[in-house]
């Protein structure tokens, strides 16, 4: 953190990214390299991995050990689930959702992808685009991650060849044409040797583009939030039991999207009643304009019956209010999806129940083919289903709004989260 500046630190942006790739792609090495070259590794951590590299008989420090997991995982030789890691540059703070590459991959990648601005997908330059590359890209597009960075890794093993790089880029463009990807970047790197990760490679003069770190630091994320559609789910009603605030009623929550300010005419769902925003505040301080993802408290010009789970929106811009909806789901449990089964459903901060009315099709995530005859939805499967909820939900399509467009299904017997759903 040598270029550390306090003023800078106060104005840093937060960028969340997820990494996809199997162990063999050098994912752990890449993350280790990012942390190491950006000087985020502390002496005590470095000593620990030096010692372990030495114990294992390695000549050099194995950077992948930096992301080594739990004892329970080492015993089984697999990574169990998403681990979160942090590093910062003078410009941005990064949260990495480091997802493991084994069989439960889909479930974990979907989890990591659900909040990510950027997905890093690793491709082994020697192998080119594989089924798993398609799988990773499909999940990134399904979860609507705004930016995709394809790291073509192990360039050192193909003599830093421009031709190999171009070939992989063409392959990827060909298969990704079927996907809904907005912004994609290609980088030739060697995580092991450090080429184009933090420092510009001396071995690939033909590559004029940015390094990975430069890209992460500069990729344009401020327009990733939706500032148009006002959606404010009321999370908690604040009614102080203190005489000085006798008549105070504050509606607390986190703005999902849109901009709210005093004087705005708003509509409350489900009652449909109107009101005018009196204040938007936090901790006694008035906020002139509040936007996603702020947590705030709103007061209104008059008493309206509002409780947790209601939504404050603008008069002329309502979400859909329906009980029957189509959802793309990723199944995340060993118990299979039951057609006709009932599940608890959670949408924003609202709880309801639902019944599975139809399984429309299952997607083969390696070929992206739709199979309308296969109704067996098990762990890591992706399918489109139709559900009916016990109460109406106030939702948008996932494409339009990641937070009013997403749901989870919960098994009512085990209480486990069994599916992630994106409303179509």
């Amino acid at each position, binding site marked *: 953190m040598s270029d550390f500046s306090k003023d800078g630190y106060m104005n840093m942006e937060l960028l969340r990214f997820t990494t996809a790739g199997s162990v063999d792609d050098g994912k752990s090495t890449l993350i280790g390299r990012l942390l190491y070259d950006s000087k985020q590794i502390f002496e005590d951590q470095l000593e620990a991995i030096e010692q372990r590299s030495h114990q294992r008989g390695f000549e050099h420090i194995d950077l992948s050990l930096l992301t*080594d997991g739990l004892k329970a995982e080492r015993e089984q030789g697999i990574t169990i689930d998403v681990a979160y890691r942090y590093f910062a540059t003078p410009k941005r703070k990064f949260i990495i959702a480091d997802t493991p590459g084994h069989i439960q991959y889909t479930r974990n990648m979907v989890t990591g992808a659900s909040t990510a601005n950027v997905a890093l997908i690793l491709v082994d330059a020697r192998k080119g685009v594989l089924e798993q590359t398609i799988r990773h890209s499909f999940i990134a597009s399904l979860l609507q991650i705004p930016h995709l960075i394809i790291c073509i890794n192990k360039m050192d093993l193909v003599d830093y060849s421009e031709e190999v790089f171009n070939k992989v880029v063409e392959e990827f463009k060909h298969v990704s044409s079927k996907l809904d990807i907005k912004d994609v970047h290609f980088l030739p790197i060697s995580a092991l040797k450090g080429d184009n990760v933090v420092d510009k490679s001396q071995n690939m003069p033909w590559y004029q583009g940015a390094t990975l770190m430069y890209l992460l630091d500069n990729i344009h994320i401020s327009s990733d939030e939706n500032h148009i559609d006002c959606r404010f789910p009321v999370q908690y009603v604040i009614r102080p039991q203190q005489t000085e605030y006798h008549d105070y009623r504050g509606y607390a929550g986190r703005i999902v999207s849109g901009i709210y300010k005093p004087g705005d005419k708003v509509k409350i769902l489900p009652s449909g009643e109107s009101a005018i925003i009196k204040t938007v505040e*936090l901790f006694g301080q008035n906020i002139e304009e509040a936007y996603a993802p702020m*947590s705030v408290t709103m007061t209104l010009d008059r008493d309206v019956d509002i409780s947790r789970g209601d939504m404050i929106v603008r008069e002329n811009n309502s979400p859909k209010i329906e009980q029957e909806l189509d959802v793309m789901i990723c199944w995340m449990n060993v118990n299979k999806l039951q057609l006709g089964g009932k599940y608890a459903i959670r949408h924003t901060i609202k709880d309801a129940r639902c019944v599975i009315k139809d399984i429309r099709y299952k997607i083969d995530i390696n070929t992206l083919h739709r199979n309308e005859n296969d109704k067996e939805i098990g762990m890591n499967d992706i399918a489109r289903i139709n559900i009916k909820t016990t109460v109406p939900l106030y939702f948008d399509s996932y494409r339009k709004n990641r937070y009013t467009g997403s749901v989870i299904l919960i098994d009512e017997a085990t209480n486990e989260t069994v599916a992630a759903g994106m409303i179509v």
Partner: protein
Amino acid sequence: MILYHLNHLRELEAEAIYVIREAASQFERPAMLFSGGKDSIVMTHLARKAFYPARIPFPLLHIDTGHNFPETLTFRDKMVEEIGARLEVRYVQDSIDKGRAREEKGPNASRNVLQTITLLDALEELKIDAAMGGARRDEEKARAKERFFSHRDEFGQWDPKNQRPELWMLLNGRKHIGEHFRVFPLSNWTEMDVWMYIQLENIPIPEIYFTHERDVVNRDGMLLAYSEHITLKETEKTEKKIVRFRTIGDMTCTGAVESPASSLSEIIDEIAASRTTERGTRQDDKRSETAMEDRKKAGYF
């Protein structure tokens, strides 16, 4: 043109407040664990912001090991008074007296592990179904895999293999009777974020975070504060040093760092230049490579 974009400290704040409000809504009897350390102080500050102008709608719970720095307890009582919070204290000494916990022996004896017994007893006694804690994922590799809402079985144990996936900001706090949750609003904060936020919000912290002169014992390279809870080995002697604490835990296992930092701004500069992690000053983590993982499984934070 106005850029509608939150800086990272405000985004972390918004996320933590969301998690705290969610814990207060989804559970019947939540509580917030308060240790007197900077993380729990920041978390308490966020809880005030979440429900203002109402008071914090759940109690603070302090598991008192009896080995606290006296400055921590003074700070705690003053803060609780000022913010009008409800404080519950449960004592490790009581667990020892009742025969529920057995004191460790030897010069490295610590009550750190015993806390878990008192904590689990307190959660049961007070029927707490969600205990919020200030643990951060950047602290340790076992904590790197924690959820915001972390499920615990009826024995209070953490099962790393059986955690619920956490998607978007949809938090699933459903549970069976007898089970409970640990909730971590500061999951995504780093040590630096915590310090910068303390400065940004001007949050009071105990004075031992700042430089002062103190009698310390150098034990295996760690400067332990000399107190009645420390038994000197034959070769050890105390010395006066100018120190401060980077983390605050028990006196028996928290190391001081030599430092002249007397303001938040100096502390932040010092941490920015630091080449070791803050857990490096904690002897409780140095017991074995999996010390934290093992304690967490048993019900520790």
